[in-house]
């Protein structure tokens, strides 16, 4: 079988270079994988997607919760990410010495915390009362610690040989991942069904502190972190892409355990969870166990879709951050969400404009004019599900300024609008996309991520493979139309890091 296929392919290729045949060949590879994917939706609405492959006795799991910072409102910014952290704190059985007693202390702790918060916000705070409550709070916190088996959830995965146990929160989603030796399938079922059925959000206040450190680490002590946070807040005035995933410091300091419980109830019903499992497992066995373990989670209503939309922009916006750092410029243009018919044209445009050594930005700014050391463009900033940004960025070379670079970028943008891209560029985009699709499918974990993403955000996991058809169909005119429509100054925000003391007078 194998040999025959090899030979045939060899013959075809030695004859021709026609891209059409190349596409066919690619399409075949994708079709073959697609055929092996199986899906099953439980009675409670939770969906499982399985791809069996046996390269090694390992399996990757990906749980995609359709909730991210875009679901947050004022007062609870950062709560999706807090919940993600809390999901590692164990359950009624994992991470505790005595669940019943522990729950009671935790409830008391919450009450004291609420009283403390109220008193602190009173018009005339009573310092005596605050101090008493604070002591009580610390005592209860200590008492609660007595019941905890520290880090047991992590330890249990570790012992089983878990690899890459982690979770990510973005504007659009919260994703829980792990890989295991493939005979541990049932262990995963037991752990994860318990995790989403019986969570106990213990060590809440300690973890909130950890997350504040994470905010300092990623946003407050990083010049680019500061810039991005301010950039989003300017580019999105209404849509919740406005705030950083990690949330505002004041919210992090005040979000309560009950807030998290409520949020969990609203967004973690089984119908809002999608799972992909890729590796050395049998689909029927996965579905049998999923019915056994996950179907017992009670179903709940699907959360209401997001209401707030970003209105049309009225004029070019600017944002600057002064920092002890060298200049950086980033320009973001509003674009529609990933399910827009313009999406692939944007993808092609980003590739041709700013991805790789032969892209336009790199060629002109770095190789030809030598005024930047790196420049590129990309889509999906900060998310993809809702209308987002097409972004262009540039690191000016030593002794060159962002202004200098922006002039060149603007000139290149006007070329995109007024002149057509070339056939050569378009063909490059199509070839690179195919190659990257293959690369993205090689690892079990990345494949699982792709299947859940396409199923939830694009509406069908088959698009993991079928998207190639849309890529193949894209034309020079499509790209030009998108450039014309969206790459206008009125539709953009410009953000810059300005070296401290230079106050924008560059």
């Amino acid at each position, binding site marked *: 079988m194998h040999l025959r296929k090899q030979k045939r392919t060899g013959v075809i290729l030695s004859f021709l270079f026609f891209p059409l045949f190349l596409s066919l*060949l690619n399409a075949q*590879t994708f079709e073959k994988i697609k055929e092996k994917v199986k899906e099953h939706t439980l*009675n*409670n609405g939770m969906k499982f997607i399985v791809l069996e492959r*046996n*390269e*090694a*006795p*390992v399996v990757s799991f990906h749980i995609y919760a359709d909730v991210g910072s875009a679901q947050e409102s004022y007062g609870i910014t950062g709560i999706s990410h807090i919940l993600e952290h809390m999901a590692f704190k164990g359950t009624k059985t*994992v991470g505790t010495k005595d669940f019943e007693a522990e729950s009671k202390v935790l409830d008391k702790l919450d009450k004291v915390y609420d009283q403390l918060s109220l008193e602190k916000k009173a018009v005339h705070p009573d310092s005596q009362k605050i101090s008493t409550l604070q002591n009580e709070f610390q005592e209860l916190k200590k008492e609660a610690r007595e019941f905890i088996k520290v880090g047991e959830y992590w330890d249990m995965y*570790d*012992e089983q*040989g*878990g690899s890459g146990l982690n979770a990510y929160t973005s504007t659009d989603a919260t994703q829980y991942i792990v890989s295991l*030796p*493939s*005979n541990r399938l*049932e*262990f995963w079922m*037991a*752990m994860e069904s*318990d995790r989403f059925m019986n969570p106990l959000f213990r*060590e809440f206040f*300690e973890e909130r502190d*950890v997350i*504040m*450190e994470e905010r*300092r*680490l990623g946003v407050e*002590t*990083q*010049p680019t972190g500061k810039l991005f946070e301010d950039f989003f807040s300017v580019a999105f005035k209404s849509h919740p892409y406005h705030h950083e995933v990690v949330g505002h410091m004041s919210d992090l300091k005040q979000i309560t355990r009950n807030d998290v419980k409520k949020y969990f109830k609203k967004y973690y019903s089984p119908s809002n969870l999608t799972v992909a499992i890729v590796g*050395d497992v049998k689909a029927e066995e996965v579905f049998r166990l999923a019915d*056994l*373990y996950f*179907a*017992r989670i*009670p*179903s709940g209503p699907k959360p209401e879709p997001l209401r707030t939309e970003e209105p049309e922009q009225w004029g070019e916006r600017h944002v600057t951050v002064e920092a*002890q*750092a*060298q200049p950086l410029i980033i320009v973001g243009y509003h674009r529609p969400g990933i399910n827009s018919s313009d999406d692939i044209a944007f993808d092609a445009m980003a590739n041709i404009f700013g991805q790789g*050594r*032969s892209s336009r930005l790199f*060629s002109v700014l770095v190789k030809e004019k*030598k005024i930047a*050391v790196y420049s590129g463009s990309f889509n999906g900033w900060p998310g993809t599900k809702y209308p987002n940004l097409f972004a262009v960025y540039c*690191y000016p*070379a*030593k002794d060159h300024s962002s202004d200098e670079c922006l002039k060149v970028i603007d000139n290149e943008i006007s070329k995109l609008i007024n002149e057509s891209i070339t056939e*050569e560029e378009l*063909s*490059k985009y199509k*070839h*690179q996309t195919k*190659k990257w699709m*293959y690369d993205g499918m*090689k*690892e*079990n974990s990345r494949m699982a991520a792709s299947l859940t993403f396409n199923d939830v955000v694009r509406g069908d996991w088959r698009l993991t493979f079928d998207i190639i058809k849309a890529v193949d169909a894209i034309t020079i005119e499509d790209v030009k139309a998108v450039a014309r429509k969206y790459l206008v100054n009125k539709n953009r925000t410009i953000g810059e890091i300005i070296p401290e003391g230079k106050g924008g007078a560059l």
Partner: protein
Amino acid sequence: MKLLKLINANLILLCILISSILSFAQKSPKEKLVYPQLHKIEMPKIENVTLKNGMRLFLIEDHQYPTVDLRAMIGAGSIYETNDKIGLASITGTVLRTGGTENIPGDKMDKLLEGLGADIETYGETNATYAYVSLLKEDIDKGISIFSDLLMHPALPEDKIALAKIEQKTWISRRNDNIWSITDREFRNLIYGKDHAFSRYAEYSTINSITRDDIVAFYKKYYHPNNTILAAWGDFDVKELKKKLEDAFSAWPEEKIDFPAKPQVNYQHKYTVNFIQKNDVNQSHIQLGHIGGKLDDPDYPALLIMNQILSFDRMFKVLRTKEGLTYAPWGYFGADYDHLGIFNCGTQTKSSSTVYAVELLLKEVKRITEEEVTDEELAKAKDSYMNSFVFNFDSKGKIVERLMNYAYFNYPLDFIEKTRNGVEKVTKADILLAAKKHLQPDKMQILVVGNKNDFDKPLSSLGQVNEIDIAIPTENMPEAKKQQ
């Protein structure tokens, strides 16, 4: 609506019923599960050959996707640079690719490769220069032809050298932009010493002093087939690929290389407290440690398990989970192939808990040298290593790249299995013994980068503070002045 709701309710009830019928089979995560036998790890067939000109090959077939990856390791690392030309290996590695060849200039090569959806990249690092190729299998001939041409006949043109220098100088000007990179860089400096091959970094003056002649000489001295190992994996026939590589590189003659002595590490253990002031941050970055070890040290398996316990069971649980002091604490005994690595631990924490965090880290290092780890910790760490061992074999690329490294540093090709056998035998006593031998908690070098105005305690409570100046020497400052 009502009817729908009713149906829904019935469905739910049915679900509950069904699940309660089957619930005898559900296990709580704490119950012992019986696992089916794990499928055997099927080791791929590895073609391991040395060509006539001394170039070594490791090839693995993998027909899952119609792609091919090649990766070459050339013994031309920055360890062979002199102190007045720091950046030479890196610039050579960059210009090798950006300059293209006599036949295909770099910019044309960019278009050609990207037009195929292919990548060829080269870069110089401390130990070696790396080159990789990644392409669709139908382009393999073109790819090999360009790749071999690059390694054998690079153009190394002046204009791309100038560009690489601009790039290098720009990154020098940006090297203090980020607190992470400051901490990493300066901590390496503390351990290996300034100007040492394992810690030094380029300055404007060293970049300016590099000429095309230097680059050509560096290339001519080190870029030879007998100093190159190549690994390939993907959709090819091993015999065919071997033949193709043999043909492509047949005109590359073997050459005797007169290697300079490898840099020696002469470490003197000492306790020091070092500080870099940054007034634009509200969080300190902390690293502390001393010299580490080598991979072929018989204690390595014990140190590996010690790492797991020190880092995850202890530092993570104490500093992060219990104290909420930090997002990412770690402790790691670093071991390298051919030289002593670095033992370090570190974290980031808000300015007002800086000294406290240092004290907690020191305490954990001390503790692991004073008392045995618990049975539970040992069992867990070993289980974790053993059960996740299979992930060392879950991709052909991983397997073949590992072999390439072993071959390059003259390690036995089954080093990973040897390590596993060692880990299996590790005892609590072994760990304590190894910790006592390799860790010196009283002679740690401490580095804190942060804003001292907001610290919980003055850093001097830890000892006499040595303040490090990280100002970047300006481009035209004479060398003598910079030293002061």
